[in-house]
């Protein structure tokens, strides 16, 4: 199950952060599970490094397995 960043919020501790996240981000039935991380524990890449980090893969379409037929049983990949 892939998780996706949905947003940021304030909370005094992790337990409360999960409750707040439930209330703020899962009101329309989007929720299945919640992970919370303190923002100061997140290491992020710098936007200025975007070029060296991501551009080299732009020209290498053969790295995408789009040339294969994926059997339906495999599910989301």
């Amino acid at each position, binding site marked *: 199950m892939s998780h996706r960043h949905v947003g940021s*919020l*304030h*909370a*005094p501790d992790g*337990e*409360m952060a999960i*409750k*707040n996240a*439930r*209330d*703020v981000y899962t*009101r329309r039935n989007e929720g299945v599970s919640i992970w919370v991380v303190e923002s100061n524990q997140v290491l992020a890449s710098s936007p200025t490094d975007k070029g060296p980090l991501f551009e080299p893969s732009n020209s290498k379409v053969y790295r995408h397995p789009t040339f294969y037929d994926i059997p339906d049983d495999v599910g989301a990949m």
Partner: protein
Amino acid sequence: MDHAFEFLVRQGDNVLVLGHRLSEWCGQGPVLEEDIALANIALDMIGQTQLWLSYAAEVEGANRTADDLAYLRDAWDFRNVLLVEQPNRDFAVTIMRQFLFDAYHVPYLHALESSKDQRVAEIASKCRKEAIYHLERSSSVIVALGDGTEESHKRMQAALERLWPYTGELFLSDETDDAVAESGLAPVLNDVKARWLQTVQSSLKDAYLQMPDNDFAQIGGKSGIRHSEHLGHMLSTMQVLQRSYPGAQW
């Protein structure tokens, strides 16, 4: 008196009035997260109201709907306990009122799941899932604020003392309570009280709050005999649309 109707209206009115009180915070919460959380709980409670009052209207058989019951009765026909109609005042009072009610609501709904009336048992089971989350949230906030700063502790203790006299009514049985317990529709209130007290004692202890040593109880809400003056003011806001434009729909 039709005790089944009376009982159902009490359930509906408790969540209707408390739900409306919580909705008064919408857009004014102390932080965004709390604002949304309170609005969510309010919506849960309005949804629960619909279940209880629809059934009440069916049982009554007088051609009234849940909406008629919610929007066209006056204060003396409301059957909610006094606790839930108390005004929001500050956030401490709001969240303490919520906690004291949630701590009752969860075990009460749990007991209602064994009601002899299948429909009551089903409604209770649906509501309890929501109530468990409400209690989890309100009890965490009680502890966070009771064990927070000097100011938050002081406000929480004051809120507890202000609301305490309104908790007794939840468990004082009257003729209707006795009748519905007798017929197996609802539990004996005293049995629920033990579980309420357990939750309250343990959360207050964690929150470093002092449980008032006083069992004086304000009564007259669930019988409709003596609502506080606050209920009428609340209803005048809640019902203004149906009163001004009778039958308005959208």
